[in-house]
C-alpha cells in the first residue's frame, strides 16, 4: 500500500527540529524510516507532519570520549556495527547489531530510531538496557539525560514528552575484565527476536563477581533478571549455577501472541539465558 498524505519538513538543525516538533500538530519524527515507513504503508500511522532528521549532521556520529562511547541518535546501525571501538570494546553491541534486520535496513536504520520505536523484541532496546546506556534528550525546556532503564514506560512508549527527541546515547566502555554475550531466537535471521538474552559476567578470583542478565521479548519492556543476577554473585561459574539462574525464567510473565504462546517464550528465555551465560563466561578470559 501507499503511505497516507502528510506534510514533509526537513529541518537543518536540532533547534529547528525542536521548534517544529513543539509547533506542529500531530507531527512525527522520521529517522531511518525502517519501521515508520512500513507503518505508514500499512496505514498504522497517520501523521499530519513528518519531520525528517536525516539532514541534521550534528545528530549523527560516533566519538570516544574518556571512558564512554557517544553515539548520535541518527547514527546508522551499520556505522555503529562497523565501528572499531564497538568491535574491540563493546563486542556484545556488535553481536546484537548483526541481528538487527539486514544490510539494506542497517544502512538506513538508526540507533535512536530503533530505541524510540521501542519494539519489545528489538535487539538495540535489549542491548542498550544490558549495557546501561545513558540517553541524551533535547526539548524546548533544554537538554536532559536519562538512564536506559527508565526509558521504556510501557509497550512501545518511551519516556519522551511529545515535544522532546532523543539526540544521542552514551555507552560506558568496560573498565574491568568481563565476558558478554547477546543471543536470540528468531524464526528467520533478521526478523525481530521472539526472545533475546544479553548476559555480562565480571569474574573475580575465578568465580562470578557480578552478573547482568537482560531479556527482550518476554514482556512489554526489557526485563532484568535481578533474582538470577543476585543468585550468581560469588558463585562458581558452572553448569549448575547457570541452570539455577536460567530457572529464574519460570517467574516471567510473557505475553501470548499470534506467533508463539507464553509458555514457549518462558522456555526459550531459560534456554537462551543458559547459553548466554555459558558463552559470556567462555569469553571472560578467566585466569
Amino acid at each position, binding site marked *: *500500500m*501507499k*503511505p*497516507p*498524505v*502528510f*506534510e*514533509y519538513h*526537513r529541518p537543518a538543525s536540532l533547534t529547528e527540529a525542536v521548534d517544529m516538533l513543539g509547533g506542529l500538530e500531530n507531527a512525527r519524527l522520521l529517522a531511518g*524510516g*525502517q519501521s515508520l*515507513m*512500513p507503518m*505508514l*504503508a*500499512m496505514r498504522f500511522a497517520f501523521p499530519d507532519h*513528518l519531520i*525528517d532528521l*536525516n539532514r541534521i549532521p550534528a545528530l549523527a556520529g560516533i566519538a570516544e570520549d574518556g571512558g564512554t562511547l557517544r553515539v548520535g541518535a541518527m547514527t546508522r546501525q*551499520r556505522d555503529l556495527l562497523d565501528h572499531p571501538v564497538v568491535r574491540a570494546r563493546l563486542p556484545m553491541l556488535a553481536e546484537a547489531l548483526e541481528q538487527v*534486520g*539486514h*544490510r*539494506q*535496513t542497517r*544502512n*538506513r536504520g538508526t540507533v535512536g530510531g530503533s530505541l524510540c520505536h521501542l519494539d519489545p523484541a528489538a535487539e538495540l532496546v535489549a542491548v542498550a538496557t544490558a549495557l546501561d546506556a545513558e540517553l541524551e534528550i533535547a526539548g524546548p525546556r533544554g537538554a536532559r539525560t536519562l538512564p536506559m532503564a527508565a526509558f521504556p514506560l510501557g509497550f512501545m512508549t518511551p519516556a519522551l514528552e511529545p515535544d522532546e527527541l532523543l539526540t544521542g546515547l552514551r555507552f560506558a566502555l568496560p573498565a574491568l575484565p568481563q565476558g558478554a554475550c547477546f543471543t536470540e531466537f528468531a524464526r*528467520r*535471521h*533478521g526478523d525481530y527476536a521472539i526472545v533475546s538474552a544479553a548476559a555480562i559476567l565480571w569474574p573475580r578470583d575465578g568465580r562470578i563477581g557480578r552478573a547482568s542478565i537482560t531479556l527482550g521479548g518476554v514482556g512489554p519492556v526489557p526485563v532484568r533478571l535481578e533474582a538470577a543476577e543476585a543468585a550468581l554473585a560469588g558463585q562458581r561459574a558452572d553448569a549448575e549455577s547457570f541452570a539455577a539462574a536460567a530457572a529464574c525464567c519460570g517467574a516471567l510473565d510473557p505475553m501470548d501472541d499470534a506467533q508463539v504462546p507464553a509458555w514457549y517464550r518462558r522456555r526459550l528465555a531459560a534456554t537462551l539465558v543458559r547459553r548466554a551465560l555459558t558463552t559470556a563466561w567462555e569469553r571472560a578470559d578467566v585466569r
Partner: protein
Amino acid sequence: MHDVTLCLNGDVHRIRVEARRTLLDAIREDCGATGTHAGCEHGVCGACTVLLDGEPVRSCLMFAVQADGRELRTVEGLAKDGVLHKLQQSFIDHHALQCGYCTPGFLMLAAGLIEADPDLSDAALIDGLSANLCRCTGYANIVAAVRAVLGRAPS
C-alpha cells in the same frame, strides 16, 4: 509537491512528487525505470533493492524527496554497451532465476555486497543475501552465481 533531482544510473532526472511518493515509485513511475520491482512495499522482501550512494537500501522504505541529490543505481545500470554485467551473466549461467521477479533486487544487493568487499566470505555472502526473498526457492543457485563471480568453484 516537491522538486527532486535524482541521479539515476548517471542520468539526471528532475521530477516533481508528493512527499508521500516512495523512492521506489519515483524510480518506476516518474523516472520510467521499471527494472526495479515493487514486491511487498513494506520492507520485507527486498525486491526493490537499489544502490544509494553505492550502498544497498530498500527503495520502498525511503521517500523520493529524501533522495534529492543522491546517486542511485538500479538494474538498468548494470549492463554496459549491451554487455551484461558479470553478475547478470552468472545468474543466467547458474540458473539463478525462474520467474525473475526478485532478480533485480538480488542483483543490486549482490552488487553492493561484492563492491564493498570483493573478498566477502561465504558466511557473509549468505548472511547478506538472506535479506531478500525468492518465492521460486532459487537461493542455492543465487548463492552459486554470486560465488562464481567471486571466483569460487561450486560448493
